[in-house]
């Protein structure tokens, strides 16, 4: 650890100024990779996702979605971390990693399918290297660790080649750190020196429960105790997200040990569309964090770098298009068939599946015949 793991690394402050500190020094080489062009891509990912997010929330209110899980306010750390992954890397998300999904090329309508109740989540994890959402808090932390162990066993990681070795980025929230599975993932990751970096979005809340109920020490300090290379970042600073994730992934991929990032951010919206956060938190707190918006600061930086209006207009247009596309396509998503309930429970033939799907087929046919 370059410094106490509790000191947050920041490269871009809320006013869009480039900053540095003793804590950030270790990562400045990686921060320097963030060209204006790369920063523009961050901006685009964040803004388009924000507009998509807002559109989806609106569609949920109109009854088009069973549930919506917003990521508003958390785009900064997410875009930095996701853009820090190399093509060969893999992401194991929790369920609030909307920007990361975009960065890895997931069709957002497939995310929508899940929240509409059509599927349990069916994007192409093999080509996107972006795994399904995991809804049982903490469970994916072990999957990501085992997967990383597998990469190393396979010679796809830990060979010492920083360009071609692969690594895993595993995401979860502050609340998830209380589940035994998450601690167990730390144990396995360190025991096998697996090429994995844990990306914990500490957004202050686990539904209505503040982070202070889950921990009395910074989560980065807890993770460091397990022997993870542990860093706290300003989670609303995309550059910090990028630089620190890149550094820790590069270290992990070559076999030099797993890492942990505590990304200090805030959930500006509700936990999900089912939640009413006014019941448990103050609007002051929300406002305070609103002033630290991750998108605004990148925009200020880009403006300071004299990026022209055309770029911003183009991003706005893409955002509008993406939202429009969502509205246009949402009601045309393919519905699941009855048969699909039975078809994939097992990879190989199973007599109960055959019998039950046949029974349902005939039952449905009879019902249709009767009416």
């Amino acid at each position, binding site marked *: 650890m370059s410094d106490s793991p509790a000191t947050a690394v920041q490269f871009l402050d809320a006013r869009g100024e480039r900053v540095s500190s003793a804590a950030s020094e270790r990562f400045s080489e990686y921060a320097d990779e963030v060209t204006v062009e790369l920063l523009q891509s961050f901006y685009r990912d964040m803004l388009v996702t924000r507009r998509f997010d807002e559109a989806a929330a609106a569609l949920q209110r109109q009854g088009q979605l*069973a*549930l919506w899980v917003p990521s508003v306010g958390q785009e900064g750390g997410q875009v930095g971390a996701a853009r820090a992954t190399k093509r060969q890397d893999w992401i194991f998300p929790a369920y609030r990693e909307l920007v990361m999904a975009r960065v890895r090329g997931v069709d957002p309508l497939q995310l929508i399918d*899940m*929240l*509409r*109740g*059509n*599927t*349990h*989540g069916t994007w192409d994890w093999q080509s996107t290297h972006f795994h399904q959402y995991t*809804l*049982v*808090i*903490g469970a994916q932390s072990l999957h990501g660790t085992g997967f990383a162990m597998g990469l190393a066993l396979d010679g796809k990681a830990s060979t010492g080649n920083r360009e071609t070795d692969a690594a895993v980025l595993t995401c979860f929230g502050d*609340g*998830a750190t*209380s*589940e*035994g*599975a998450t601690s167990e993932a730390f144990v396995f990751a360190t025991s096998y020196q697996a090429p994995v970096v844990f990306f914990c979005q500490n957004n202050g809340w*686990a*539904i*209505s*429960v503040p982070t202070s*109920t*889950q921990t009395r020490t910074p989560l980065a300090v807890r993770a460091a105790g397990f022997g993870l290379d542990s860093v706290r970042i300003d989670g609303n600073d995309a550059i910090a997200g990028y630089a620190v994730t890149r550094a820790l992934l590069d270290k992990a991929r070559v076999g030099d040990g797993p890492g942990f990032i505590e990304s200090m951010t805030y959930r500006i919206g509700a936990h999900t569309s*089912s*939640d009413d956060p006014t*019941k*448990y938190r103050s609007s002051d707190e929300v406002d305070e964090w609103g002033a630290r918006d991750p998108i605004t600061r990148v925009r200020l930086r880009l403006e300071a770098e004299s990026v022209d209006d055309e770029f911003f207009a183009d991003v706005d247009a893409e955002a509008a298009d993406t939202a429009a596309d969502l509205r246009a396509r949402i009601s045309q998503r393919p*519905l*699941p068939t*009855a048969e*699909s*309930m*039975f078809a994939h*429970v097992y990879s190989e033939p199973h007599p*109960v*599946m055959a019998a*039950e799907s046949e029974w*349902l087929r005939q*039952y449905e046919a*009879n*019902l249709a015949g009767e009416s």
Partner: protein
Amino acid sequence: MSTQQLPAQLPIAKAINAGLRAAMADDDKVLLMGEDIGTLGGVFTVTAGLEAEFGERRVFDTPLSEDGIIGSAIGLAMAGFRPVCEIQFDGFIFPGFDQITSQLAKQTNRHVGSMAMPVVIRVPYGGGIGAIEHHQESPEAYFAHTPGLRIVSPSTAHDAYWMIQEAIASNDPVMFFEPKRRYWQKGPVDPSNSGLPLHAARVVREGTQGTLVGHGAMVGVMLQAAELAAADDVSLEVIDLRSISPIDFAPIISSVEKTGRLVVVQEAPSFVSVGSEIAAQVSERAFYSLQAPVIRVGGFDVPFPPAKLEGLHVPDADRVLDAVERSLGY
């Protein structure tokens, strides 16, 4: 027990809330604990207002760990408390499975009776609310197979109000399964008379040509099926199990002795389920009375499907009637 002023009709969620309030007022060893149950009052508002009323000492949010909730509740029970734990959704009980199966269920036996385990685990369960994965399961079979646990599930506001209090009063661990899709179903509550003991089944509709038995949200489905059957001049008896472990077999056997036919209805997958046990025992105990085999209607033996398919997966009145027809066909 203290008596509260209750409105004439209460939704089940509010009846549980009232039952919890009554139990807490009666015994200051009763604690409520779980995720988001304090200030928020639970994601289904079942504990709404109770933190404000009884204070953070007796109603408290826990860190996000079901194993931690159950494990520390066991310690609290050892220390003389009566913790009532909320598990936020059915599908999230499994991280706590070891503490329930190997510890909670076994402590009293391990201590040859010198340690009571008055822990209640409240679990909103079942489908029908259009939720995403893990939010609509019916895991009661796992617990029914575990000696040392008691398992109940109310289907009416009256039972919800009383059974939660009886569960809390029990010195044994009780899993309290709340049929979440019925939370807003209203019914009368008689605060002066519980009616039946905790583990008694109840005949909720009398009939002569066949018997339907089930619990929780399926009671409404069975009643609807019986109503439809009546329109076709088929008279069905409907039994609400209320208790899943132990099962009160006497009224089921009597009913089958009268009707000669039994259909068991449940949301859970059928294979190795509570329905299997009922079918097995009734087949044995009413061997000479059954005019048809016991027929089970359950969820399919698949993981709970995406919401758009739940209408097919969870038994409805039609599926029940189809089974009745098959039974009558023997």
